[in-house]
């Protein structure tokens, strides 16, 4: 059905404008009529984008080349911040190491658990909404301070975990203040919040028609074969989506580290997440310029990762509308 009305603002009349040249005023008026509504609606976002995103981003790039402690004006420092970070700052390396470790373990494990449970829930299990709610709840409460506090107590020296272990006669260390285990308590916390990716997997699984599975089963494919040959490939877009989102989230993690470790990355900086280190440099040590440099390094890392993910996705993610 042909429409003579396109998106609002571009009402095309049937006639063509004749050749008489328009004055500047008329042209401006037309432009305003055409673009005005759009820009008016967009105005709040535009103000926000320029004032709260673009300018601060540029500002932070500038700051990253300065020494700035808030009390005195910024002093140009060239690439000093960056070279310090890469060549001299061992704490920076710790923070990177801790964050990578966290991402590398928590994201895959979280996704595997999410997928497993999504599959278990997929076949019209009775009481599905109850299970869904229970599994989603931790995700919802996840970065709340209450939960971080709870975690601290559970894994503390006299906490629940040690009590359970004592029942079997063993003596557990103080998990959250032990450099080998503290990060793992945070990884477990992350995995505990698998609810969100699980919901997305559920939705994705729903989109795989039952007939495909039945056909394969009739051809004699066992459950494992069906999983690897059918489910996984068809789920690839969803897996990709979850993977990118969860990884970016994991890079940004702050609250768990701040609360569980008391805000200083203890013990021995084993819970010094990148965000935590940035926060400490900016708001405890007042090295705003250095913190800005750290932020840009993080941005570049995330950008590289995202680009990498998108590029390699060509090889393992097939969308329905692309055909094979």
């Amino acid at each position: 059905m042909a429409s003579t009305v396109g998106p609002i603002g571009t009402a095309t009349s049937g006639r063509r404008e004749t050749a008489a040249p328009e004055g500047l005023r008329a042209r401006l008026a037309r432009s305003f009529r055409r673009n005005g509504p759009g820009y008016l609606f967009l105005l709040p976002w535009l103000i926000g984008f320029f004032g709260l995103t673009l300018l601060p981003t540029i500002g932070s790039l500038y700051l990253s080349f300065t020494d700035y402690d808030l009390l005195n004006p910024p002093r140009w420092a060239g690439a000093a911040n960056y070279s310090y970070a890469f060549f001299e700052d061992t704490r920076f390396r710790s923070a990177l190491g801790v964050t990578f470790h966290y991402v590398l373990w928590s994201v895959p494990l979280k996704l595997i658990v999410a997928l497993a449970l999504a599959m278990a829930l997929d076949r019209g299990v009775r009481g599905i909404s109850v299970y869904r709610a229970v599994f989603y709840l931790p995700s919802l409460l996840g970065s709340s301070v209450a939960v971080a506090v709870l975690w601290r107590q559970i894994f503390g020296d006299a906490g629940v975990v040690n009590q359970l272990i004592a029942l079997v006669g063993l003596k557990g260390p103080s998990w959250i203040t032990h450099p080998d285990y503290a990060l793992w308590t945070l990884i477990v916390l992350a995995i505990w919040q698998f609810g969100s990716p699980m919901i997305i997997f559920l939705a994705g699984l729903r989109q795989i028609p039952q007939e495909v599975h039945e056909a394969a089963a009739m051809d004699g494919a066992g459950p494992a074969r069906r999983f690897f040959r059918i489910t996984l490939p068809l789920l690839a877009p969803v897996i990709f989506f979850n993977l990118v989102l969860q990884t970016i989230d994991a890079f940004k993690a702050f609250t768990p580290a701040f609360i569980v470790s008391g805000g200083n990355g203890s013990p021995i900086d084993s819970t010094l997440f990148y965000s935590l280190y940035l926060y400490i440099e900016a708001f405890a040590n007042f090295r705003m310029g250095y913190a800005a440099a750290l932020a840009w390094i993080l941005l570049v890392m995330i950008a590289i990762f995202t680009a990498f993910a998108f590029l390699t996705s060509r090889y393992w993610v097939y969308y329905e509308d692309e055909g094979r």
Partner: protein
Amino acid sequence: MSTAAPRANKTRRQLFRHAILIAAALVMIYPLLWLISSSLKPENLIFHNLGLIPEKLQLDNYVQGWTALRFSFGRFFLNSFFVAGMAVIGNLLSCSLAAFAFARLNFRLKKLWFVLMLGTLMLPYHVTLVPQYILFLHLGWVNSFLPLIVPKFLAIDAFFIFLMVQFFRGIPREIDEAAIMDGCGPWRIYWRIMLPLSTPVLATAAIFSFIWTYDDFLGPLIYLNDMRDYTVPLALRAFVDATGESRFGQLFAMSTLSLIPVFVVFLAFQRLIIRGVALGALKR
């Protein structure tokens, strides 16, 4: 595959599935149950028995914890609700305006702005954190709620814009056209037609807006200096770090209370939330 007694096999599989689900559910929920039950126990019993059923049920922790900090938790809850509530209003207004522009209006450079808007989704908050702080410092807004609320009125949460754009695109244009025939301008269409039809996505945006703002810790941490203005997460942390007698029971009681608003919102809108997540994520 044996054809003998397939039904028995199926039931066995069902049971197995249920067993795993129940075990997983218990593991998921145990920490929270433990939190609640500990909040009801007297202080000295909390770490002494692992059982979930408290031997002595008492509400002391709640009563004392409520007023244990310099201000009562009532104040902290009020602060949290105020900030979260304003965030919801701000987000719904500004994001729907922007989404309408992207979904329904045409204007020069629209594609550019759209791409930039999506780009902000990828930008980690760290990059803007320090300059935004400096900006607010110069505006004199630090130590007030303004840095937490005003950005919401400027559509800072691009995620909601994106969600709404997807939704608006699904509303048939014929409705718009009919309205234009009747002489409606864009504002009318937005306000009288688009919004009322978008209740599901608006509700989803409102819910997530509320929950995320309520749980926001870093923002209040750097912008709220006076304990009088603390939101619940900050107050809880003050509890944790307070030097004094061990007050774990009170801490757990207040933590439990802090989870209730989120929990209630979740229960009431479970379906909407899940639908919202699925719709926003999977619509291509």
